[in-house]
């Protein structure tokens, strides 16, 4: 109880210094929370593309259901596919109609006859896309375009490039985060060294009265942990505000990729993590500063 009171007295007696520390910490944890959220969003975007059929092969009108079933079996036996879906001409028309509801002219012009049936395949791993496409190339029932090429669409490029960007976001986030955490740690070491030096007289008296090192250190540790707590809360709050304010812009950019609402479980986990980590890091910085002084 006494330690808590002393820690709050330290903060109260140097309000501008305390405010400045919280602001610097808040800025650092704003950036750290933002990178974590960006990594979460990019993972979600990647997941969206990964969940989509990665290969679509269009079938000749003459293809029979037996031939389709045989193709499905061949693909399943390769062990490289996760999901295989046959889309009939009628189903293709339905999808087309859903996608073009607001354009009646286009709806009138298209009938099930002119749309090809297709087979949509999701691979277990991105590197299986090529072998699967090679199997399809051998199949007679796959439609052929004017240039004598089989009509097979696959989005290896998009997913690969998304993976690359997600990895980049994580790496940059880790780099920037690591730098910011080091900056926070050093800031606390410097500020708490200054604070304990200013309390030189009091520390000397406490030692002469028989105070243990822990009794002297504890209020400084708690004071730093309080800075860490508020820095992380304000930083996270700033990130959340930015995220909610920029929601319309993100939605318009990402279109059908559903990012919002962002999982409250993720947000709570992020808040708890930054608060705990920040408080511990600041307390550790303070421990280093006070130990150095008391030595």
């Amino acid at each position, binding site marked *: 109880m*006494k330690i808590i009171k002393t820690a709050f007295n330290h903060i109260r*007696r140097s309000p501008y210094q305390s405010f400045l520390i919280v602001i610097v910490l808040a800025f650092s944890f704003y950036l750290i929370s933002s990178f974590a959220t960006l990594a979460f969003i990019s993972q979600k975007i990647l997941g969206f593309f990964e969940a989509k059929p990665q290969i679509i092969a269009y079938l000749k009108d003459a293809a029979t259901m037996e031939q389709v079933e045989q193709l499905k079996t061949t693909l399943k036996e390769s062990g490289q596919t996760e999901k295989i879906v046959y889309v009939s001409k009628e189903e293709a028309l339905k999808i087309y109609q859903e996608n073009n509801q607001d354009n009646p002219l286009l709806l009138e012009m298209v009938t099930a006859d002119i749309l090809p049936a297709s087979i949509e395949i999701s691979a277990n791993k991105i590197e299986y896309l090529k072998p699967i496409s090679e199997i399809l190339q051998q199949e007679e029932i796959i439609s052929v375009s004017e240039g004598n090429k089989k009509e097979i669409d696959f989005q290896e490029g998009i997913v690969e490039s998304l993976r690359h960007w997600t990895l980049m976001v994580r790496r940059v986030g880790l780099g920037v985060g690591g730098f910011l955490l080091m900056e926070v740690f050093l800031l606390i070491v410097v500020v708490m060294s200054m604070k304990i030096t200013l309390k030189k*007289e*009091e520390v*000397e*008296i*406490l030692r*002469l*009265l*028989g*105070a*243990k090192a822990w*009794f002297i250190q504890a209020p400084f540790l708690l004071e730093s942990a309080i800075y860490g707590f508020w820095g992380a809360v304000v930083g996270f709050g700033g990130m959340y505000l930015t995220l909610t304010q920029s929601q319309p812009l993100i939605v318009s950019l990402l279109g059908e990729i559903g990012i919002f609402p962002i999982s409250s479980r993720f947000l709570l986990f992020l808040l708890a993590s930054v608060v705990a980590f920040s408080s511990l890091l600041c307390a550790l910085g303070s421990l280093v500063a006070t130990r150095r002084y008391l030595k």
Partner: protein
Amino acid sequence: MKKSLPILEFKQVSKNFGSQRILEEISFKIYPQEFVFLVGPSGAGKTSIFRLLSREILPSDGEIFFDQKTLSDLGICDLRRRIGRVFQDLKLISDRTVFENIQIALDVAGGYQNPTEEIKKVIDWVGLKEKKHLFPAQLAEGEKQRVGIARALISAPEVLLVDEPTSNLDSNNAWKIIKLLKDINKKGATVVIATHDEDILNSLEDRTIILSKESKEKDENN
């Protein structure tokens, strides 16, 4: 007055600061509940003896015993809680009130059921009831001395070391402080006062340990 076993004992203690010898082969014993003056001119080593007793500095030679144990066998924090000190420069915290300055010693000692009551009792006893919310700068020298004594007393030490308690006081206030220290001694604490105040020494018949400039002690009334 002498009891069977001394509470403090210096055995052939010397202390050097660099090439300068401050104390040379000092030996004396102080028994529980004694009231002792440690006398000597400035630079004779009175304060050094107090600093050695609270292990602020270590002896160059010889051994010091507290309660039959060498100081090195006692934990430094425990030792400092058992020996109360009133410093010559008082060492009061300037941005804390009288009450808070005394409370700090109780916080360090810990384990008190009703600390506020304990502090109030000591403040009343040293006569600072009306001034407990004042800061050191708002007090007279004699009052500051009382705060120092109250802070040393609050954790009920077995020995009270008082360094030059009358040096900045007029005769009237000096006697009030000596009377207060006598009362503390009557309540059971061993009191050791470092002083060079001739008036007080000539008027009291308590035991006196005299330190000369040559750093050799001479025990009187013992």
